[in-house]
């Protein structure tokens, strides 16, 4: 009998190879994580009496929201909503227009190395600041009002949209882009025919998603003075008009849901 046949007949032991080969590293990581988690939980000091007092207080606060009062401050609310929408539309369009060249430059497969690092730098800076921090900065720079909010949201949009555009370009099929290049097309024609059709559906979907984010963020940046519905919401809280605040929150939820539904419809349509 040849040796190979004998090997087949003998029962052979098999187990899925572990993710981390060295056993001691595997165990050290597992045990270490558990110990750290236990210690971390230990440092959080829960004051149970404070919590039991706080619960009814929270409930009272929540109850103050009902019934939501749409009419009392309707003028302020509608002004805020409209201002937020203007801000959102302008910021989304400006941000996306500015992010296209940055995104093209930040795609490794189409940009020269120097351009790539420069554009990645812009994206990193834009993404490393949270909208609130940007808003505080731009309010200081441009004064209170929706202009600061619009600039904030535009700047944040560049980081978001540029990065996702660059990554989508990096995942395009190189062969069809190569085929367009082989026809003798110029650089812009190459982008327009070889790359753009491949990234377009996803980028339209992401534009709508960013619109949605910008609207929600417009409510937040308003709290630090950058205009829009956030300013109205902040005023309502400061005056303890929780019923008006509830109305504002409900309107924000309704608008976000509306954008969400329409964007999923549009995404299916552009596929």
């Amino acid at each position, binding site marked *: 009998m040849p040796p190979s046949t004998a090997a087949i007949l003998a029962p052979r032991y098999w187990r899925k190879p572990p993710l981390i080969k060295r056993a001691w590293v595997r165990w050290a990581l597992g045990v270490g994580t558990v110990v750290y988690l236990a210690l971390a939980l230990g440092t959080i000091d829960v004051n149970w009496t404070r919590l039991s007092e706080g619960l009814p207080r929270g409930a009272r606060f929540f109850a103050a929201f009902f019934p939501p009062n749409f009419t009392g401050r309707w003028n302020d609310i509608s002004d805020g909503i409209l201002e937020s929408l203007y801000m959102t539309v302008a910021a989304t369009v400006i941000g996306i227009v500015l992010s296209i060249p940055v995104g093209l430059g930040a795609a490794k497969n189409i940009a020269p190395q120097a351009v790539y690092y420069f554009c990645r730098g812009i994206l990193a800076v834009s993404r490393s600041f949270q909208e609130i921090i940007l808003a505080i900065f731009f309010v200081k720079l441009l004064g209170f009002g929706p202009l600061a909010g619009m600039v904030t949201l535009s700047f944040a949009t560049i980081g978001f949209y540029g990065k996702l555009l660059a990554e989508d370009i990096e995942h395009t*099929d190189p*062969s*069809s882009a*190569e*085929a*367009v*290049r*082989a*026809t*003798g*097309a*110029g650089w*812009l*024609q*190459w982008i*327009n*025919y*070889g790359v753009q*059709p*491949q990234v*377009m*559906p996803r980028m339209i979907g992401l534009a709508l998603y960013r619109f949605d984010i910008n609207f929600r963020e417009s409510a937040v940046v308003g709290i630090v003075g950058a205009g829009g519905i956030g300013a109205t919401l902040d005023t309502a809280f400061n005056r303890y008009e929780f019923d008006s605040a509830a109305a504002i929150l409900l309107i924000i939820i309704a608008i976000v849901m509306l954008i969400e539904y329409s964007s999923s419809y549009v995404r299916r349509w552009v596929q």
Partner: protein
Amino acid sequence: MLQIRGLTKRYRTGDLALKTIDLDVPDGQVMALIGPSGAGKSTVIRCINRLVEPTAGTVILNGANITALGSRDLRRARRRMGMIFQEYALVERLTVIENVLSGRLGYVGFWQSFLRKFPQSDVDQAFQLLTRVGLDHMVDKRADELSGGQRQRVGICRALIQNPDLLLVDEPTASLDPKTSRQIMRLIKELCGERKLSAIINIHDVMLAQMFAERIVGLQLGQIVYDGPPNRLTAEVLTRIYGEEDWAATIRKADEDSDEAKSEPRAVPLELRQPHHDRDRMAGLT
């Protein structure tokens, strides 16, 4: 006339893909480039239109030294070289006719192409070509709705609308079934004949190469190890190109086919060949 002299390519990884290749392709010649995977077939044709930059050597097409051109002149030179790809390489979300018209990108300005306002003569030519390959009823279909054979026909139209002097064909049948493969190869051969085009066809399938090419060049590890007519591909030659294997079946079958393929265009009167063309048109439409 294409002249390649001392063409060498070393990739950044250090792999020497081509070792000083010399090759002449006269006008109107359909040449098949065969060889095992990794022999450098794709590198050869990509060095000709400089989608891959050669490390050394010259490529001269109709007197113009392609290897010495700056980027602007290179784009002009690429217009004269149509390329057909393995997985069709169509832009899937564009329509059939947009894909065909993209072959004119080297001839029109950016805004013209961006607004899809191609000159009427280009549009006429696109319709003519699509009619020739039997796809004139699918003009506004998106490329991803087509079958493999249909997509390759669109790829062929895109290459031909460039009005090229030379076709560079990279594994045109690799993702097609045997019947469609033959139809596509026959179409390429016929169109080359009609337009007096020369072609370099990279192909895995030795039998298809023998059936449809008038000259075979065998590439092995970046060197030419055979250059001659299809009927001189003996077992010994195939062993030199691909390595030891039982080649008997390949050769015997191929001889019959190549005889047929050779005699057919000359011996059969045009009227009798008509159904043949119709068969071509129907290919991939079912």
